[in-house]
């Protein structure tokens, strides 16, 4: 029987299999940040265990960082202390850190791919559930808890049971204005937020084959929102071309050898998946969410469905929406464009192209937060910063920002925010804040109009 992409990468990293138990999986790259690592460092120190392979760890500061005045000391004492801990822990243990202000600093899932750290066939973990992003390269990448961060520190391995395999195929031609974000929001709206639990997902079909690496990252990023630990896309010429020439990517003969290996990774034609879903690209429209989990999504010009369950009613009550209604013309005062889902240069090009020569609506507070210093640099070099400024958008410094509102970038109580981030949970963007997930294009249009509009009318 043929093997899947996931099988090939997984099997190549199994150190040992425990009888009636888990497998020991070797980890090639361990990414860490300030929020989920301090307790793991403490644990090793308390138990007097050294870090096994500091050379396989890369650290960044992203979750708990301000997006203004990054050159000044961080105002919030707790955040400042957490960042200080990260710096000290990295220094003590010889770990590479791209801290605040470093030219490579950025959101962990933006920074690592753009530097060529993320490569096909690798196993990558990080104490962050959106580590699934790196699966865009044909990588087994998944989020782990802090106890597991400590395990990888101690042994460069994890004890895991091999997940089941799931394939989501989308074939056909995407409509105008349907972005990778819409594709993944559509998939989750169709299969639900726990359909992928216990599975590792492969995205297949010509929609993903024709997608850029940045689009593939957006898709794989949200695999966890359907419960899957990770999502992967087979590496191909698009992948190889993206990696070539990046700072830490293999070069010359080494690259040729790697590419030859990477070409063997795609799933065999006769590979069998434990579960399969198939979708038609032409069914997908620009999407918005109306509830408090990412599975509660509809076509932008659709109506909120009706459901009698208490959890559904609780969710709509929180959002201030009623079943059966449309979101078109809902006034929106906040727009957030950023997060590890949509903060790469292509996302900002889409926004700039739409808003160029237009003004944001006067009621809107529009925040643009690049995913990394490198993306910020590109924004300036391509002249996008002037477009944002002229249209009345606020361009900030890189970080996770209002996606999880750990810093000061919070959406006020009761306010709606059309956001390009990944989670619309209650209070995710601030206490009482109401999040509507959407693509960068829908977010841009909302900022200009001050309300949700039927973007399909402008596109077709």
């Amino acid at each position, binding site marked *: 029987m043929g093997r899947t992409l996931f099988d090939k990468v997984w099997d190549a990293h199994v150190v040992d299999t425990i009888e009636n138990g888990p497998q020991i999986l070797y980890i090639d790259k361990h990414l860490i940040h300030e929020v989920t690592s301090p307790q793991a460092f403490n644990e090793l120190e308390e138990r007097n*265990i050294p870090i096994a392979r500091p050379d396989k760890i890369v650290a960044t500061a992203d979750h708990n960082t301000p997006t203004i005045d990054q050159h000044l000391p961080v105002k919030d004492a707790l955040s400042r202390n957490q960042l200080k801990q990260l710096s000290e822990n990295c220094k003590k243990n010889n770990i590479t850190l791209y801290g605040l202000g470093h030219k490579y600093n950025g959101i962990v899932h933006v920074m690592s791919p753009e530097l060529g750290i993320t490569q096909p066939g690798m196993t990558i973990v990080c104490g962050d559930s959106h580590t699934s992003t790196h699966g865009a390269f044909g990588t087994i990448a998944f989020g782990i*808890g*802090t106890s*597991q961060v400590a*395990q990888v520190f101690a*042994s460069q391995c994890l004890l895991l049971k091999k997940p089941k395999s799931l394939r989501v195929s989308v074939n056909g031609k995407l409509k105008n204005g349907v972005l990778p974000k819409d594709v993944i929001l559509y998939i989750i709206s169709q299969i639900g937020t726990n359909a992928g639990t216990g599975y590792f997902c492969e995205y297949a079909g010509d929609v993903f084959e024709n997608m850029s690496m940045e689009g593939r990252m957006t898709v794989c990023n949200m695999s966890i929102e359907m419960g899957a630990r990770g999502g992967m896309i087979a590496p191909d010429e698009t992948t190889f071309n993206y990696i070539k020439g990046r700072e830490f990517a293999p070069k010359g003969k080494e690259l040729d050898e790697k590419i030859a290996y990477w070409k063997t990774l795609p799933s065999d034609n006769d590979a069998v998946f434990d579960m399969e879903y198939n979708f038609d690209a032409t069914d997908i429209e620009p999407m918005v969410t109306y509830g408090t989990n990412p599975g509660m999504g509809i076509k932008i010009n659709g109506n909120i469905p009706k459901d009698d369950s208490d959890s559904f009613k609780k969710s709509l009550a929180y959002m201030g929406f009623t079943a059966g209604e449309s979101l078109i013309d809902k006034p929106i005062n906040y727009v957030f464009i950023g997060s590890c889902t949509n903060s790469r240069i292509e996302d900002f090009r889409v926004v700039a192209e739409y808003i160029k020569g237009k003004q944001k609506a006067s009621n809107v507070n529009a925040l643009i937060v690049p995913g990394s210093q490198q993306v910020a640099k590109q924004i300036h070099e391509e002249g996008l910063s002037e477009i944002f400024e002229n249209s009345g958008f606020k361009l900030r410094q890189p970080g996770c920002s209002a996606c999880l509102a*750990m810093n000061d970038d919070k959406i006020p109580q009761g306010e709606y925010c059309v956001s390009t981030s990944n989670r619309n949970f209650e209070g995710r963007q601030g206490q009482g804040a109401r999040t509507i997930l959407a693509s960068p294009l829908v977010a841009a249009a909302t900022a200009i109009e001050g309300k949700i509009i039927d973007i399909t009318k402008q596109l077709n």
Partner: protein
Amino acid sequence: MKPFKTLTSQAIPLPVENIDTDQIIPARFLKAIDKKGFGDNLFRDWRYHKDGQANQDFVLNNPRFSGAILVAGDNFGCGSSREHAAWAIKDYGFKVIISSFFADIFKGNALNNGLLPIQVTDEFLKSVLTHIESNPTSELTIDLEAQMLQTPIGYVNFEIDPYKRLCLINGYDDIEFLLSKKEEIQAFEFKLEK
């Protein structure tokens, strides 16, 4: 980790589906650098109003209910990988969570902290929730060695990974196990990097 074998306790019902880790512990409380004290902010925005007053409608503030077992709706612990969610539940005093479905990362995090997630059928969950809501002093018993959950409305056997069961019963953690495999890991590493 303390060994876990059996537990008899009252239970607290929380029949909400898709309880995500942002509800269990909101991100603004993740700034600590140790594992202590997260229980104070468990379910913070459901438990307290914005002015800091306790929300009397929330079950943890209802004096009728107490105990070390949380019985919650489907797909518990979805969302972020923050282990702070497991620490908060443990720190508050819970030792067991019963639901009809657990999100992957949360389940692993719970087990790594000696917090036992027990998955039951949808139907059984509903019956248990209904029973506790009208009989708050009823006790539930968990026997991990026998993988059995006893309730006043009947008993069920539950599944748990055999390795994880052994770890919980003996109070072992994965780090000790992985360190015992150091030589094999190094040999693998050598082969990989050659």
